[in-house]
């Protein structure tokens, strides 16, 4: 029997040679033969759910995450199938996407563009995510949308309401199911005219950033068109928590409507301040003083509590909607989590299913194929009624809800009541509308990486 002499150097040398030997053939093949970024080659496909789990919109982010997990369950054929039963497209079979089991990774955007991009990049570079979904702020959505365009994956936006997402910052790889500020304004204006009259004087308090401006611009344009006068528009710093000093001048301005272009914690605080000043009981110009909050969410309504009684606003979706898709979704969500879904949860759920369905119909995960399948796609059964994914700007067109803080809420989830469902036709605009970047805005070309 021969004797082997194991020396440290000998082992290292052999190891190095063996390592190089193993690596050598791969050096030539590794320059990825994949046709597009993160082409799924195994038996599973990875989706990236990028939501705010810490920071001001954490509640919404966590609700979105619940909905996304539910969507994955339904795609994989677990649970009761949810909206797969009501969805008008029957491409999805409950066996994953294109036969591959759906897996997901999650990340924390912290509601900061930088952190959101870092998190999305790690999903794309490390976990091999083929689609990114989520977000609870327009700034974040636009930043991540740009990233996905560069990286060559599909971005399915979550809660983002600014006109810019599918306006001047629209991207070929980005899609938005949620409605936008222009639609809010177009839906609200006729209701405001009917309920409050055509000769009101409005005072705007606006959060001083992109979303606030686009919201204010839209509302002012729509209300002025029906005869309202905009008395003043005051920009409030985003970090404000006490709005008393902004509220006091409203009372002396001769305005009889206060429009709060605020969202999240800002809206809760400014509305509470306005109520504390007794505005809702005031009578100005022989009219009852009214408050309007253009963009509502259930979580904000819960935060503001009693104060939202009789306050008008608009929503993308509400769990009280009685169409088949909505009933099915509320049932699935409620049975699993013991509460009705929020507006943002629904949009993320729908986006995940829409993406999966587009892959099935396109027969590929290639972002360009998926984008083509989504463009001009008409569907129903996901909770919002009949919906169109417009090809020109990747924006969904569907009915918009005008809601009002419930006068007599029967339980803690019943804080808002639906005043009217504004038909999609009434909120539709031209793709080159000046508020959406005009003629200059373009999707660019789709990028498959």
């Amino acid at each position, binding site marked *: 029997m021969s004797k082997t002499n194991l020396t440290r150097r000998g082992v290292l040398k052999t190891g190095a040679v063996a390592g190089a030997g193993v690596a050598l053939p*791969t050096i030539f093949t590794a320059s990825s033969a994949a046709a597009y970024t993160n082409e799924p080659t195994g038996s599973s496909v990875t989706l990236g759910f990028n939501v705010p789990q810490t920071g001001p919109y*954490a509640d919404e982010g966590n609700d979105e995450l619940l909905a996304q997990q539910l969507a994955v369950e339904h795609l994989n054929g677990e649970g009761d199938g949810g909206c797969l039963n009501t969805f008008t497209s029957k491409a999805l079979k409950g066996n994953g996407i294109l036969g591959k089991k759906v897996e997901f990774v999650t990340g924390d955007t912290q509601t900061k*563009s930088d952190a959101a991009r870092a998190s999305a*990049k790690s999903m794309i570079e*490390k976990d091999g995510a083929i689609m990114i979904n989520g977000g609870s702020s327009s700034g974040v959505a636009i930043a991540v949308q740009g990233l996905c365009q560069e990286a060559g994956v599909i971005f399915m936006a979550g809660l983002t309401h600014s006109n810019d997402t599918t306006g001047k910052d629209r991207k070929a790889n980005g899609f938005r199911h949620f409605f936008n500020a222009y639609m809010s304004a177009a839906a609200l204006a006729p209701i405001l005219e009917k309920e409050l009259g055509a000769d009101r004087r409005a005072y705007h308090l606006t959060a001083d*950033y992109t979303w606030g401006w686009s919201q204010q611009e839209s509302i002012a344009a729509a209300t002025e068109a029906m005869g309202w006068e905009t008395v003043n528009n005051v920009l409030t710093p985003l970090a404000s928590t006490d709005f008393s000093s902004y509220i006091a001048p409203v009372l002396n301005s001769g305005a009889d409507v206060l429009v709060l272009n605020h969202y999240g914690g800002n809206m809760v605080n400014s509305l509470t301040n306005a109520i504390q000043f007794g505005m809702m009981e005031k009578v100005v110009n022989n009219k009852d003083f009214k408050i309007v909050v253009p963009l509502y969410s259930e979580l904000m309504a819960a935060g503001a509590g009693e104060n939202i009684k009789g306050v008008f606003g608009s929503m993308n979706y509400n769990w009280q909607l009685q169409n088949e898709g909505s009933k099915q979704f509320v049932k699935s969500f409620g049975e699993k989590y013991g509460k009705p879904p929020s507006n943002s949860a629904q949009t993320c759920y729908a986006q995940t299913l829409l993406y999966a369905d587009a892959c099935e119909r396109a027969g590929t995960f290639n972002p360009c194929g998926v984008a083509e399948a989504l463009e001009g796609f008409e569907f129903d059964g996901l909770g919002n009624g009949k919906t169109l994914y417009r090809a020109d700007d990747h924006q969904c067109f569907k009915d918009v809800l005008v809601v009002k803080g419930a006068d007599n809420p029967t339980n803690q989830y019943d804080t808002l009541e639906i005043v009217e469902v504004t038909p999609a036709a009434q909120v539709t605009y031209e793709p080159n509308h000046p508020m959406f970047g005009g003629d200059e805005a373009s999707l660019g070309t789709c990028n498959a990486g």
Partner: protein
Amino acid sequence: MLGLNKKDTTLLIAVAVLTMFAPFFLNPFPSDSAMAQFNAGYPDLMQRFVIFGIFAIGFNILFGLTGYLSFGHAAFLGVGSYAAVWIFKLFTYNVVPAIILAVIVAAVFSVLMGYVSLRRSGIYFSILTLAFAQMMFALAYSVLSNPKFNLTNGETGLQVYPNDPQMFHPDSMQDFPHLFGLYMNSTYTMNVGPWAFDFNTGYYLCAVVLLAVFYLAIRIFRSPFGMMLRAIKSNQTRLNYTGLNPRPYTLAAFVISGAYAGLAGGLMAAMDPLAGAERMQWTASGEVVLMTILGGTGTLIGPVLGAGFIKYFENIFSKINDAVLHQWFAFLPDGLEDFVVFLIHPFVGKGWHLTLGILFMLVVIFLPGGLVEGGQRIGKWIKSRGKSKDTGPKTEPAELGE
């Protein structure tokens, strides 16, 4: 070598080896194993490690040497990023002019901010810098992003649009920052068995810059100028009585560290051409303070370690969700599995801040000198264990006297 003593040369070489082979060190687990969750060797995170390392090294030149605790350094990082993106928008995607301008602009801002703030020391200095930085954040976030004069693009972040002039950017080139044709996002993936190692152009650019500025930092630490800065930290009054005016020295240190921050900002924009205002928020300024303290204030390598530590938690721990936990503990019986997941749940995913906070407290309480002190203690323990046979505990008093 290079005018360094033996110990510093060893340190520089160690850092060089670590940064050059980081793609290997940071991906120790095969990519299909359950432990792959802890791999940090993907381009974006590696870039972040190095960029925040540069930021923290610069911050340490001010805080570690002079003892002036600035709470506004993120402002320079942000200014640097904006400057770099403007170069991309107006002229070219080549990163060299962008990074140079980022450093210059950040240095100019730090002269202004330092000139005012350095009139006070201690807590007043910290508050002044904090106020300046918050002011600049507010300017970037809303004031300077109004439709009439849009310098920062507000909440969305400054980015390059197809209709920007980009005077020297030929149409034949891709729309991404590059170094004379080498694109920052190009990655070569080496597959060795089940392992995958990513070699990214952008990362290596950052790593080379890190080495250069690390070398510069060593020279500053060892120079007479560095000695003056240390003198300011130990007793500024005495320095005044000897007839020396410390203010030019503190201002120089402030500007140098501001320029480092600008360099980090410029690199950040070069890796990812978008500059957001949150980069300038006070939490970002606080983060670099944490990095420096966590790693070891006043040490050379400490801030880099601290930066790596914090970025690792932010990016790796925040991505561990319940599904991942269940996968890990799937071998346990059902009830026990749920219980273990329930126990760990608050510390991962959205609870990453909590874990980081606890670790930070532990480090500050038990290792006041930061991670570097931890390393030194382990080193000493190993050494003394080897020595204990012949010399025994007699050496201890000598070591304490260091």
